[in-house]
């Protein structure tokens, strides 16, 4: 999967336009010669650099690309081209980050992020993150103690709801709005005396609000659904969410990588207790890197991955799992995790989930040096290929989670690389029986 991605589904035109802009903004092909008077300039600060690169008084045409690069990468502040959740449309915003490194092995960063989309979705976050080096002998992995403190708020004014379960009709979508606030702390730590295991926990408060949509030409959730068909629609209590997790991860025989996460969650309804539930989540990702450099590591841009996701929720008798906290498959979920891209976002929803997701990624052209330069090579240097096949289902009972009747999706597309990182991906999902579904991803550092 594209690391740190955010994802949206949108009209082809806007997406292709954004892809083009990103490619142009970030392409080193448009940089000027260092000796040119119109070069991007690294001045005393990034702000100085931005002012010089983006001066409108002269040469703006030539400065356009330097200005764009500065605009999206400068520190402490830079603009973002992102979305909020799948289906929220193209968005933009800004991020202010300041490093607060201390000379005791700790890397601290304070980061404020805000994004708003053309469809009126918005997101704001204030996060303090700290990585503290652990030099004790028991730390065999050399990993750091991580601490994140965060406050987030997002407004999602128009989301689709197709009903619960694995057999809903795509034409029966209704719309709802959701706003959530969360604040909490997450800690991760290497596990004593083993190099392949880390552990951690999260505790956060959740304050969700869910309601109907009053826009024209849409059916609001409250017109079609009730507390029985959409648990949690009637009231949304505050929750205390506690999570503990283990993260076995290892790289072996150079080409193989395992990254598992086993998490146990408690969602405690802090009001009546009616919506309290527990959830076991297992994410088991396996990667194989077919290409290895002689006398070196693997080529990270070329890999085959298999991800198995398994999630079961357990509410006591008489209790319910709110629909807005249930798992989804189709497109990407509300945390921007892709699954079954042949289907629309949030297409199937249920308290339990199992998916098997396979993906093959590779940069189309291998490194060549020296190699014949030219338009074809320049384009090829920035292009990657992605193929995927997913199968999965949601269920209302964990006993229904098996490999029968799974929805399937396959597809492929291209990635646009900036150096070694994927900055944009466009692909098409097929095979779901519900038409062709284009989807687009953009790296979250933009």
């Amino acid at each position, binding site marked *: 999967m594209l690391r740190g991605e955010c994802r949206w589904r949108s009209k082809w035109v806007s997406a292709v336009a954004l892809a083009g802009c990103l490619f142009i903004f970030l392409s080193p092909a448009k*940089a000027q010669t*260092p000796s040119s008077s119109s070069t991007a300039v690294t001045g005393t600060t990034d702000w100085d650099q931005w002012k010089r690169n983006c001066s409108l008084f002269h040469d703006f045409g030539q400065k356009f690309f330097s200005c764009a690069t500065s605009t999206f*990468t400068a520190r402490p502040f830079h603009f973002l081209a992102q979305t909020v959740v799948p289906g929220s449309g193209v968005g933009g915003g800004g991020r202010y980050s300041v490093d607060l490194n201390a000379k005791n*092995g700790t890397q601290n960063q304070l980061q404020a992020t805000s994004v708003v989309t053309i469809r009126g979705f918005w997101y704001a976050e204030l996060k303090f993150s700290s990585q503290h*080096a652990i030099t004790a002998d028991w730390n065999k992995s050399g990993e750091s103690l991580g601490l994140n403190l965060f406050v987030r708020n997002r407004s999602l004014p128009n989301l689709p709801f197709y009903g619960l379960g694995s057999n809903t009709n795509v034409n029966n979508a209704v719309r709802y709005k959701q706003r959530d606030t969360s604040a909490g702390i997450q800690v991760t730590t290497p596990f004593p005396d083993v190099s392949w295991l880390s552990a951690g926990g999260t505790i956060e408060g959740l304050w969700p609000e869910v309601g109907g949509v009053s826009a024209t030409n849409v059916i609001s959730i409250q017109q079609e659904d009730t507390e029985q068909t959409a648990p949690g629609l009637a009231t949304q209590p505050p929750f205390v969410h506690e999570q503990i997790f283990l993260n076995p991860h290892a790289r072996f025989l150079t080409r193989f990588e395992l990254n598992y996460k086993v998490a146990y969650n408690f969602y405690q309804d802090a009001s009546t207790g009616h919506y309290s539930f527990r959830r076991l989540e297992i994410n088991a990702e396996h990667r194989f890197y077919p290409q290895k450099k002689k*006398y*070196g590591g693997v080529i990270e841009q070329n890999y085959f991955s298999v991800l198995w996701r398994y999630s079961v929720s357990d509410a006591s008798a008489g209790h319910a799992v709110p629909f807005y906290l249930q798992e989804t498959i189709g497109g990407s979920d509300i945390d921007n995790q892709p699954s079954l891209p042949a289907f629309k976002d949030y297409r199937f929803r249920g308290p339990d989930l199992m998916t098997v997701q396979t993906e093959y990624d590779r940069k189309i052209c291998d490194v060549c040096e020296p190699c014949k330069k030219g338009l074809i090579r320049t384009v090829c240097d920035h292009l990657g290929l992605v193929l995927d096949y997913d199968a999965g289902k949601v269920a209302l009972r964990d006993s229904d989670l098996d490999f029968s009747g799974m929805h399937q999706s396959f597809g492929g597309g291209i990635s646009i690389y900036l150096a*070694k990182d994927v900055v944009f991906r466009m692909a098409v999902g097929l095979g779901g029986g519900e038409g062709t579904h284009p989807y687009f991803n953009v790296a979250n550092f933009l």
Partner: protein
Amino acid sequence: MSAGTDALKHIVVLMMENRSFDHMLGFAKSPAWPINGLTGSENNADSAGGVAQVSNDATYAGDLTPDPGHSGFDSLTQLYGNPNTPVTQNPTMSGFVQSYEGKNVQPQDAHRIMKCFSAQNLPVLTGLAQQFCVCDNWFSSLPGPTFPNRAFMHAATSMGRVDMGIDWSNLSPTIYERLKEHGLDSVIYYHDSTMASTFSGLAGDPGYFGSFDNDFLPACADNDLPPYSFLEPRFANSAGGNGQLAYSASDQHPDHNVREGEALIQTVFKAIWGNLKLRNSTLLVIVYDEHGGTYDHAAPPTTVSPDRKDWTNDPNSADRDPSFDFTRLGVRVPAILISPYIPPRIDHTLYDHASAIATAFKLLLPNVPNINLTQRDKNANTFEGNLSLAQPRTDNIDLGPVIQSQPPTAAELAQPINDHLKALVQQAAMLEQKLPADQRSGIDPSTVQTESQAAAYLSAVDARIHP
């Protein structure tokens, strides 16, 4: 030949920056470890008549700003007091304080150049030196700065140069090319920059270059090192960003934090030592390129000119480096040989950087006559005799507590770049100019002023030079 040389398949050379032998190891001398170190009474005079004595209170960072001089002019000043003294005369090692005063440092403040480390403050370097083989008679290859001394490690010559000019494209043949001619591979693993990127003999082949983190460490884990590896430390404090962590410079170039270099040395040692198969087939050489202006008491001896190419001072230029015929070695530097076939010992044999090349040829291409690159490596002493054990050691190597690399502080990131880093930035700019215009970084290198800006620029160019 011995069991150790028979088993040897890999040579790894880690070259650190700009510290003399006495500065790093001199005060570790003891009756139990009788290296040619310091007695504590060694001294230099300042221009005000004061006497600066060596002391063992050097700190990891902060002692050596401004950067002590180590050009040809500076080094000969340090050796003789007067830089124009004929190099046929024996050095007195009397001009270190005087030379540092030349950097606009007050006489009393210039005494800092005599500060040396105590053994307990360098547990990794000292620990390895004491538990393996320390060479206390290894000199830099010329009294001069980084690039020409590193050139000797690559090619047993600096092609008659003592300057920090950035273009080393004519440095050929190098050890890498010579090994290739005989079917052996070699890789230069680097963090943020390597002067070898300018070598025209290597520039066309990406196989000569690898990333320290992404290639060297996995290759160690996978027992996939080439026969010969050269390791570069990190030369610039990096701010990170965009999901990347910040990293401190690990080269130990003044006034970079020496403890970061300790962490790097420990990492390299552990990467090799942690793989039993690799450990038993590898000779690790840890050496410093030159003294960086820091004090050493051992007078460099005479040597042979590598290729009869002399440096001639142009009296009409601003360049102050005196003419030089390369018949005198530079200031002594720390050098440690590590292999499970090496017992704890002190090697007093005379070596310079060309010794590493000569030894590599002897061990890796034992049956090839006249393989030398220049007269310098042809005449150099070799050190394979230190692999003298019949069985590989299995004892525990104690380097003290793990030293974890730490991120640079805001002040370190904002630090003005030193001359070496400035040269690396210019070198990157030169390499970038050779790229098609549409593939350049778009950053104007002339405006790079701070460590973090230098790191960002080097990274941007490297992504294009070695994608």
